[in-house]
């Protein structure tokens, strides 16, 4: 997926901005995170007869301005869930490899960690998360992450931003370089949380314009 260099990503802050419409979208195939990879028996047995991760496709667009990257992620969700009160929130995350070749489905490993920028409909702030395997996620190094979400017409559209440069154990993106991106989506109204989610099984290659 090409990441165009634009003047300022601030112009792309609004999820519904017409500027996004001018860019070509990359569709990403989504599958349920495998039951067998759920971190414990309880999660497995409680979801073995329960459908989840039914989202089949998400749509990505991205731009950068030399300092920050903005990614628009959009997917269909007929019933948005903000997670107010006892509800589970809708959520989405974009993953980037930190080093090595992390296995996206296995949430990376100690040798090959990965970093997320995560958004939840229940929270104002996006957050950076570091994962070195299933069930291991911890607060990640700050990368100036933000998320701005909007739901309309049966779709969530979320604009994630982060700095290109990483700090500490985080993924660095370089203008003119390449990287990878993975996607996870949680459908809150189906009580999806933790490993119960839709994921892109494969990394999607990123190619940043210089």
């Amino acid at each position: 997926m090409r990441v165009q260099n634009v003047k300022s990503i601030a112009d792309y802050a609004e999820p519904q901005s017409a500027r996004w419409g001018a860019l070509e979208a990359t569709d990403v195939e989504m599958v349920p995170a495998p039951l067998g990879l759920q971190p414990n028996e309880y999660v497995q047995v409680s979801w073995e007869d329960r459908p989840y991760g039914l989202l089949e496709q998400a749509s990505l667009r991205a731009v950068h301005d030399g300092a920050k990257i903005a990614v628009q992620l959009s997917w269909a969700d007929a019933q948005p869930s903000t997670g107010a009160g006892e509800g589970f929130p809708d959520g989405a995350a974009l993953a980037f490899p930190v080093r090595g070749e992390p296995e996206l489905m296995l949430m990376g490993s100690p040798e090959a960690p990965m970093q997320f920028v995560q958004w939840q409909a229940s929270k104002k702030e996006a957050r950076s998360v570091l994962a070195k395997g299933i069930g291991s996620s911890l607060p990640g190094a700050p990368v100036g992450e933000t998320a701005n979400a909007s739901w309309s017409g049966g779709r969530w559209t979320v604009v994630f931003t982060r700095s290109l440069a990483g700090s500490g154990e985080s993924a660095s993106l370089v203008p003119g370089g390449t990287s990878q991106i993975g996607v996870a989506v949680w459908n809150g109204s189906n009580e999806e949380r933790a490993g119960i989610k839709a994921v892109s099984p494969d990394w999607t290659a990123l190619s940043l314009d210089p």
Partner: protein
Amino acid sequence: MSKGVTRRSFLKAGALTAASLAMPNFLARSGGSLQALAAEAPPDFNSALDVYRKAWTWDKTVRGTHMINCWYQAHCAFDVYVKDGIVFREEQAAEYQQLNPDVPDMNPRGCQKGCSFSHRMYEHNRIKHPMRRAGGRGSGKWEQVSWDDALNAIADAFIDTMIEEGTDRVIWDLGPDINIGAANAAQARLAQLTHSICLDSNSSNGDGHRGAFETFGNVYIERSLEDYFYSDVIIIWGANPIFTSIPNAHFFTEARYNGTEIVCIAPDYSASATKADLWVPVKPGTDAALALAICWQIVEGGHVNEAFVSEQSDLPLLVRTDTGKFLTEKDVDGGLESSFYMAASGGELREVDRKDLDLDGFTPDLEAAFEVPLEDGTKVQVRTVFSLLKERLSAYTPEAASEMCGTSPGLIRRLSKMVIEAKALSNVSGSSMNKYFHGNLTERAMILIWVLLGQMGRKGAGYSAFGFLANDGWEDYVSGLRMKDRFTFGTEIGLDLVWDWMKGETSEQFFKKLSTSQFIDPGGNLPVWTSSALFWHVHGGVAELAEQADQWVPNLKKPVKEALHESLEQKWLPLQPPADKTPRIMFHYCSNPLRSVRGSQKLLEVLWPKLKLSVAIDFRMSSTALQADYVLPAAAWYEVTDHKWVTPLVPYNHVTNKAVEPLGEAKPDFWIFTMLAKHMEARAKARGLDFVESHLGKEIRLANLYQDMTMDGRFGEDDGDAAAGAILEQSSNLSHVSWEEQKETGFVRYDGIGLSPLSIGNAGELKEGEPFIPLTYHIDDKQPYPTQTRRIQFYLDHPLYLEHDEHLPRFKAPPSIGGDYPLTMTGGHTRWSVHSVWRDNALMQRLNRGQPYIVVGQKDAEARSIADGDWVRCYNDVGEFFVRAKVITGAMPGQTIMYHSWENYQFAGSGDARSVSPSPINPVELAGDHAHLKIGMLEGQPGCFDRDTRIEIEKISPEDRARLGKG
């Protein structure tokens, strides 16, 4: 897919790993395969608790307690935890010493209500400022006023009323929470100095224990909790201690483990019944039949303790069969009317010794029946009380009694056998029986069991009635610390005392006389009291509700109102102010009559319009405060230093210490009353007024009121702590430990019952290491009882009792109060509040149902298509109210239970739980002009009855419920 793995093969691989992933975390964490997947152990887990560790830190702890009347369960020493000037929690001190190794210690006294007073005191209904009504009474609209403005306005009205209409038009409506400490002493001193009237609320509370009063001439009979461990049969009867004696309850559950048989007699399978070895269901209000059936089993089986009844009771006394009166010396030889006879076998008369119960080896003939020549030359047939009683008891065979009370004959026999075979028989007293119209008869019948068996005055054996244990320095303080002067030789009372002593009267009788005098003219330095039941009936208009009483109560000899009128006319019972004088000012202090008085709807209709001023002094908004003209914010119990009376069950004086400053502008009660005196003095001086004459013809020194109030400045408005100490220093039973030390420890064991009329009747000694056993002064030391016959008295030859055929214990069917309706509305104190103090507390509500409810049995609910939680209308001829139904399995068919003390403002729509209970006065309770049936502090007054209330209930529609509004 990365690394050339196809998705299909990846998912398969995922499934394969599931087996290892299935290993539970608690094993996996110790080296399972998940460990390999997890990046690293989560950080320093134990610090996860730091937030909780921090939550449990504080600036200081202060010893405290709750100045509330939770009666049988009072009191409990607490540590109050303070942080940042706020009480954030409290926890029981739990430092009571074990009395001896046989018995459990009392720790950790407390209950859910006491353990959350910190929550209550900061809740929304806390009154924080003096307030003046800004709309009509009860409009709920208020304006804040300064203390100065409030006290000046009240002082002016007080003075105006005294001048214009009399001092007895000012009424101190005192509720059950008065503490007999400094707070209440200031109120009483102001009442005494102004000759205004104090209401004795015990009568309208329905706590009179009339049967004990009729039998012992005294209601104050209670043991210490430890004594239950020496009982082998404990009967819970007319009580529900699992609800109402929470800190005491372990003595019963533990005695049960110790081999004691616990019996619970109650219509419903109550919380207390669940802890019993035998539950005896009985129809509401019919317990007398059951008790008399037991008595008949005792008599018929030859189990009467003849030595005991001969020495201690009136059973050997002779009664004239022509008049039904006791045979007196006056009849026989023109001597004293107060001198009675027993008979030796063979019919020889023997005069009863009024000064000593000891029979000196004499054995009276309990069954004597013979002819006695009288002074006037005629002859009269006489019989013993015992023989009359025996004849009456024969009507209560188990089969006959079963017809009356619904308890099966087999169960009556089993219970009787248990009672008869008991080595040490005790009861757990509550205050249920005196809330039945014929509760006095029930209690007399119950006491008869204990007396016939001689199960009294020993460890573990005895009948408990009304618990009260107080310091005896309070009255001294109220009198201006001049009580001792009053007993000195040469004074009026001093002479009286000497005269009584010469007559062989006991100090118990003397102090009871003093207590009676306070209802008429205390003749000096004590306040004037009046019976609250009489007050509400006459001045409050409650009597009007009972005009149909002759339809409800079978065999009334005359209409209740007429009987009431007769008693007042004849001055059998004193009423202040008299019926033709109108009360004008009421101070509601520790009191909430608009909630508590049965038929309280009449008070608003009849009494309130007559009031020029209604002042509520409270820390929370009560139903009564809501209808007041002024509301004065009182300090809560952690904001003041003072002490509080208890009962012999827990014979420890309890102290609360000021832990934090009063919230808002709240002030200690002591300050409020003293400042009112100060403002009255100032306003009187400003008018050039030196004194007014009281209704008793005494001079009220208005221009010196503050000076007198403070005992010449010794106890100013900020000296409540010192006043509380002075009270204890003057007490014969609490001065063995200094006030400073008592404040430190928070509790101290009484070393005697003292001389207070509220305690002296316990007539026993508090010995170190021994449980307290009441009445041993009578039973061991042979001192006479304060009754007409100087003995435990079952025969009452008062004309009213003879007229109503109540001269001996008997069963009378419960009346249908409120009309002919199928359900009896019984009641009981709730687990969830003490009076109304916690009724609207959010924590208690959340552990309850959040709204008032009436308890209904399954079958009665089904018959009316009522499901649990439905809204119902409860009604009878007198009124109606709306609540939700709580359907339980343990209520007796025909029984509903309306637990105590919901505030009126918690009922949706008009009407509240009191609206259906007219509470007619029982005519025999209007007796006076008698050797022992006469008024005294907390006793000898007519009761209030709501447990025979009959109602019907019906489900209401959702539309009707919506019309009731919120609540």
